[in-house]
């Protein structure tokens, strides 16, 4: 079967991408597999200037998942372009830069810098980070703010496809999805982490200093699947599904409800070569199930 996927301008050799913030800048995983075998590499959320992130502790394990409040610690876009991107195999595997900003202006500055970079395959806009005080989520929860940001990003993105990453922490995901589509988004990815909290009854303190964190991992898969299904029904642009994917069956479930590609997040923490293994195993699974083509299988969920 032909494994390639075309996400409207972003062409992948297979539908498996990494999820931002769980795969570092890609290079961290070089000892564990061949980066060229991945559909795409999505790097840690970058801001215009380096960010320190939140105080420790920032992570806690929860049943079938984890909470994080990293707070977008990153080396800044300049250092990334200078020191990391040249070492990534962007000629064979698209490198998607996930970006974060606190204002519409900062988003446009970031986009300008990135749009002229040959090695950047697409931009993924994080309008859904629950762990930072300014920006992030507020763009993702307010349709008008989301429209403005995406519209402006598109103006500066040149030929780079713009992926808009949605937050599940909204009343109706369909409204936001529709809005960003009409604002010109090329692709939608979802879901980001779900707001959560953990406390310690011995110390009577929250388990992470930020008090709230974002839940990820297998625990969130049913929520993610529902939202991906709803969004796929609502928009015409390609959708990337993620949230709790840990094996090939999970991947096919997201494609079955309509996703064109998937991202692997927290599962990369369970084994650093996880995503590489999934690429190999998916071929076997697809063969086993007798799937003829992605076009035939995608969104072919039978109801009633």
């Amino acid at each position: 079967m032909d494994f390639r996927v075309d996400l409207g301008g972003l062409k992948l050799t297979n539908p498996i991408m990494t999820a931002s913030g769980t795969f570092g800048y890609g290079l961290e995983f070089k000892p564990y597999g061949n980066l060229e075998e991945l559909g795409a590499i999505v790097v840690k959320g970058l801001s215009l200037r380096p960010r320190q992130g939140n105080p420790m502790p920032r992570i806690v394990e929860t049943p079938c998942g984890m909470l994080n409040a990293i707070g977008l610690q990153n080396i800044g876009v300049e250092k990334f372009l200078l020191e990391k991107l040249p070492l990534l195999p962007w000629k064979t595997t698209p490198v998607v830069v996930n970006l974060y900003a606190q204002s519409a202006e900062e988003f446009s500055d970031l986009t300008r810098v990135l749009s002229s970079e040959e090695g950047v395959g697409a931009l993924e806009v994080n309008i859904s980070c629950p762990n930072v005080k300014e920006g992030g989520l507020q763009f993702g929860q307010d349709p008008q703010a989301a429209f403005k940001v995406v519209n402006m990003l598109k103006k500066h993105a040149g030929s780079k496809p713009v992926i808009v990453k949605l937050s599940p922490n909204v009343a109706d995901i369909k409204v936001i999805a529709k809005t960003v589509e009409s604002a010109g988004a090329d692709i939608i990815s979802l879901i980001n982490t779900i707001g959560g909290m953990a406390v310690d009854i011995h110390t009577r303190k929250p388990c992470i200093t930020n008090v709230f964190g974002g839940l990820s991992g297998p625990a969130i898969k049913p929520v993610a699947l529902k939202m991906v299904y709803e969004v796929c029904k609502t928009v015409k642009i390609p959708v990337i599904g993620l949230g709790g994917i840990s094996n090939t069956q999970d991947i096919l479930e997201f494609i079955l409800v309509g996703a064109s590609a998937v991202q692997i997040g927290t599962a990369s923490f369970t084994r650093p070569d996880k995503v590489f293994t999934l690429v190999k195993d998916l071929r076997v699974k697809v063969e086993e199930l007798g799937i003829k083509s992605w076009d035939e299988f995608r969104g072919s969920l039978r109801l009633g």
Partner: protein
Amino acid sequence: MNHKIENKKQRCQSLKVQTITYSGTRDFVHVYLDPPIWDYVPGQFVMFRPGSWSNDPVWPRPFSICEKTDDALRLFIQVVGRGTKLISCLRPGEDVDIWGPLGNGFSLKNDESVLILAGGMGIAPFVGLCKTHKNPGNINLLFGHRAPLSSYPYDELPENMSKEAMQQKSMEDLNEFQLVLKQKIQDFASKGRILACGPSSFLRAIQKYCLEYKADAWLSLENKMACGVGACLGCVARTTDDEYVQTCTCVPVFSADKVFL
């Protein structure tokens, strides 16, 4: 031999449990696994995740490499929570995903004297270090512990190194131990390198004395870790340059004057 810090190639492998033995109670566990293909520097660690964990617990657990021989990789683990409890119940033949060697390890020269300060489970990385050291006569070890000494791999340390163990059962014991620590550090500061591994309160005390006496000291931190490869940014420590660095890759062994504990 010079334990140089080299960027050894890391690997992720499924290794079989050979045996599990207990020292004293079932809370102190020695796990022996089939040997991995890599070599390591003492102070480095591995990520450990049994195949049977499937979706839960999600995270692997970090453990210092206690010892590695041609026959086995050995870890020394104390049961402190759910993950370590599950690990203590593993059976021979079960598969465990192991990735490593991670972190930078201790740097030391065989021909220089070294003071090792180990607190509790902090003894684990020093077992391999002492047993493979070419001149054990150069090693001075002070070991502070709560559980009975027989729970720890203390007796197997080379005969010809100098070692001293102190048990802390009460506040008085702890205060006395702190005084001895301080004295040792003061006496040793000009003589060579100090290596330390143990609980954070223990490391904080050591850091204080080492700064006071300007000792060349290296501390092995034990932060919570999710990935072990530098990707999640959950394990960072704040350095005196006001940077957050990943303890899993840039360390876990830190110069005492460079990190906030």
